[in-house]
């Protein structure tokens, strides 16, 4: 059914290699027709949501099928990679999108936001992400990034009645476009220095022509890092993050914090490891500093937050720092740690934001930690799930977050970055200062009033999202082997394609 080898220089070969992306694109176009017909009532919107969910699930199945018995490239991977890293990251993005769509269905109805195109934008952004994780060419990665970004700009401002959403969208748009320009300039300079935009050929050119000290190439890498710094919200390029996460509708925030960030990390890791490996003396130091500052600043400012949504925004900056530690190592183990942590991070972030939509009930922006007072006695299961998410974000033993963080630590130690490992541990201890108060509020404080939490109820798909993510986090926390092995296997595959062929 699926050929064992495809020639990526031919259109037919490319079509086979891109089947999951092509399917999802076709599905979006069909849904666009459905929306043109049926867009007047909340039921129509619900229908589009269900169809989007179906499309995402089928795409996930296709990705897994390719993962198990995908075609091998015949010759060079010209535009799209055919390795496990592509399928693993695509699976993470699709899981993030499925969870986001699931929590959106109830949210949009409750907030009476009637924009069926909402789901299409999530799907389009997901396609962009898949190209970011799978592109084997700088230009393909750039186009994927733009497809994702443009869709997410609109998503941030999808609630036209909210002035906060409009402000968030404008800030995100201006800074996002600014960052894209830097990224593009970086690509242009790398193209100028090496004469190619293909990741493998960039690697070959740098090694063969001895470009390690080429000024143009180093400037290009610096620009590239600035662009990605904005996209992954690394300090000092993080200014937009808290405002945008704060103002956007909560399911969109969950999608941005989880999948969008994961996609930027996937692209960054692939470019640095597959194309710029010979330049590691240049970028390791830069990423080292980004990681250290991001971890410290993100966690320190999060300590000062009283509103949960903003606190989670700063916590996501801190987590970008942890992921940058995995990038810094640049080893197979680092890639594996990144893959594992991105999956776990997606689950716990979406779960925490899902609980926020339930407890906030339209006022998520103003939900304070005190609003969780006494949730443990009134809604024990919800409080239990929130405890799991908070402990997992903290990296408490027994949850998946702990395994992920421990794995990142071992990657840092293996790469002889002891100082960074120390910073990571310190930042994690600091983060207990804002995760634990939420748990304390739920179990140790009395409800503010007798009527508190009476209306708090997880209904429909949201309940499933919270339940499934919490259970998976506990499962991966005590029995992580299967996923870890998978991550290790795919981590080993992400290396300059030249070396893969030699080792086969």
């Amino acid at each position, binding site marked *: 059914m699926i050929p064992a080898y495809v020639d990526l220089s031919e259109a037919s070969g490319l079509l086979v290699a891109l089947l999951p992306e092509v399917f999802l694109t076709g599905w979006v176009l069909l849904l666009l027709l459905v929306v043109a017909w049926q867009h007047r009532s909340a039921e129509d919107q619900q229908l589009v949501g269900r169809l989007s969910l179906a499309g995402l699930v089928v795409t996930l199945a296709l990705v897994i099928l390719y993962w198990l018995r995908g075609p091998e490239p015949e010759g060079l991977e010209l535009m799209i990679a055919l390795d496990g890293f592509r399928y693993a990251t695509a699976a993470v993005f699709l899981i993030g999108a499925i969870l986001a769509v699931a929590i959106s269905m109830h949210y949009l109805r409750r907030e009476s936001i009637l924009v069926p195109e909402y789901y299409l934008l999530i799907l389009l952004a997901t396609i962009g992400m898949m190209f970011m994780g799978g592109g084997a060419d700088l230009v393909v990665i750039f186009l994927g990034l733009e497809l994702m970004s443009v869709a997410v700009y609109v998503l941030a401002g999808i609630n036209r009645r909210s002035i906060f959403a409009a402000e968030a969208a404008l800030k995100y748009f201006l800074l996002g476009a600014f960052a894209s320009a830097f990224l593009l300039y970086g690509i242009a300079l790398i193209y100028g220095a090496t004469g190619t935009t293909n990741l493998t050929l960039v690697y070959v050119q740098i090694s063969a022509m001895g470009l390690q000290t080429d000024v143009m190439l180093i400037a290009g890498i610096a620009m590239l890092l600035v662009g990605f710094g904005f996209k992954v919200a690394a300090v000092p390029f993080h200014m937009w993050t808290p*405002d945008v996460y704060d103002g956007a509708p909560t399911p969109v925030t969950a999608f941005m914090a989880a999948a969008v960030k994961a996609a930027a990390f996937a692209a960054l890791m692939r470019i640095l490891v597959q194309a710029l490996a010979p330049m590691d003396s240049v970028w390791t130091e830069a990423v080292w500093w980004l990681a250290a500052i991001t971890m410290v600043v993100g966690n320190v400012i999060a300590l000062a937050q009283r509103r949960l949504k903003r606190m989670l925004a700063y916590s996501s900056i801190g987590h970008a720092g942890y992921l940058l530690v995995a990038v810094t190592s640049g080893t197979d183990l680092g890639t594996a740690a990144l893959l594992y942590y991105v999956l776990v991070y997606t689950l716990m972030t979406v779960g925490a934001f899902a609980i926020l939509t339930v407890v906030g009930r339209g006022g998520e922006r103003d939900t304070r930690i005190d609003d969780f007072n006494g949730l443990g006695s009134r809604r024990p299961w919800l409080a239990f799930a929130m405890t799991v998410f908070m402990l997992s974000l903290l990296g408490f033993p027994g949850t998946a977050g702990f395994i992920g963080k421990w794995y990142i630590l071992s990657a840092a130690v293996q790469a002889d970055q002891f100082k960074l490992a120390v910073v990571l541990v310190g930042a994690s201890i600091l983060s207990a200062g804002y995760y634990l108060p939420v748990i304390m509020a739920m179990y140790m404080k009395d409800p503010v009033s007798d009527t508190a939490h009476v209306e708090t109820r997880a209904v429909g798909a949201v309940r499933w999202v919270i339940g499934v993510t919490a259970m998976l986090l506990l499962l991966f926390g005590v029995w992580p082997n299967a996923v870890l092995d998978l991550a290790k296997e795919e981590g080993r595959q992400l290396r300059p394609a030249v070396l893969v062929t030699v080792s086969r």
Partner: protein
Amino acid sequence: MLLGPSLTVSLILFSIGVAGVLIRRNAIIVFMCIELMLNAVNLSFIALAQQLGREGQVIVFFVMAVAAAEATVGLAIMIAIYRHKNSLNVTELNLLRG
């Protein structure tokens, strides 16, 4: 032909764009400066394509398409914010803070 000067002009244009984004306060002018940055990069690609083959010229078309898509979405977002605030001054975007 003129590779060095072209790249220099491109760098200067890019820097003007960056400076404009950082200095100007009107959202539309900020966006124009971002467009200037993208077009500066396009100039680099075109100049490099003389030596490195047609690939660079093809990339420029992709960038132009991306810039057009960004403009559509960006201007729509600006209309949305103008309806709320009757202003496009980015220093007045101060509702979200803390």
